[in-house]
């Protein structure tokens, strides 16, 4: 078998019987060998595999699907931003609540300045040596 004939067979085994599936550089081989007896037999074998593959033909994709996908993606973004905003707000609220509770439960040191009281709170001051 010549190099060209081997290449023809390799293409039929990889890409099937139809020339349009073959690499552009090899399509001339298809035209050349398809007319020979050996070439026709090779293509017939490849066509059986093609026929087998063609039996699986999923239902077409309806146009409304694109709208559904776009809607779902575009709706997802505000939802995620809302969730993030609510999480941040909840964290800030709980931190503020904790600070207020701690502040109220411990009487302020009369000698402490307002900024120190605000930053560390009255209960934490002895613990950090103030």
């Amino acid at each position, binding site marked *: 078998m010549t190099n060209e004939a081997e290449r023809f067979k*390799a293409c039929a*085994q*990889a*890409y*099937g019987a139809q020339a*349009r*599936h073959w*690499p552009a550089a090899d399509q001339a081989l298809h035209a050349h060998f398809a007319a020979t007896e050996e070439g026709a037999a090779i293509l017939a074998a*490849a066509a*059986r*595999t*093609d*026929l*087998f*593959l063609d*039996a*699986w*033909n*999923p*239902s077409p*994709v309806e*146009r409304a*699907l*694109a*709208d559904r*996908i*776009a809607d*779902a*993606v*575009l709706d*997802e*973004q505000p939802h995620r931003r809302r969730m993030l905003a609510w999480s941040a707000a909840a964290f800030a609220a709980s931190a503020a609540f904790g600070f207020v509770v701690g502040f109220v439960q411990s009487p302020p040191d009369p000698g402490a300045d307002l900024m120190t009281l605000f930053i560390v709170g009255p209960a934490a001051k002895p613990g950090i040596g103030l």
Partner: protein
Amino acid sequence: MARIACGDAQAFRRLVDRHAGWGVSFVERMVGARADAEDLVQTAFLRVWQGAAKWEPAARFRTWFYRVLYNLCMDHFRANAEPTEDLDEELPDGQPSVEDRYAALQRADRVRAAIAARAARQRAAIVLCYYQELPQADAAATLGVSEGALESLLSRGRAALRKSMQHELH
């Protein structure tokens, strides 16, 4: 993509309209089920919408999107050791008898099962080159292999299909 990066929802809708159809077809042939395919394609478009600002046009959008979809399919296979085997195609109403339609569905299911039994890259090579009719260079780029390696994947994949389905072919 520049307009999508600026939050242009209409531009995004046009992109989805242009690419969702072939995307779902490709992924359905990869994962074997329409519902999974739609979910994965939606995930891919979510990534497009969220990452549009970082888009660098090194390749055509379609080529790049094939790669995104292929990677999502690989993640899907890793997460689901056994792909669903449900038969959910519906043939359009027409002349074939109930028996013919049933036989066609059975045949389609056997093809799907035979393709699903191939290694993921062989399956992808067959789907990209035969069903999606991608040029060899684009299919090879999607799989991250050379064109020679792609041809080898195709040859081995089709040989295995012939072997496993001999009773269908003769």
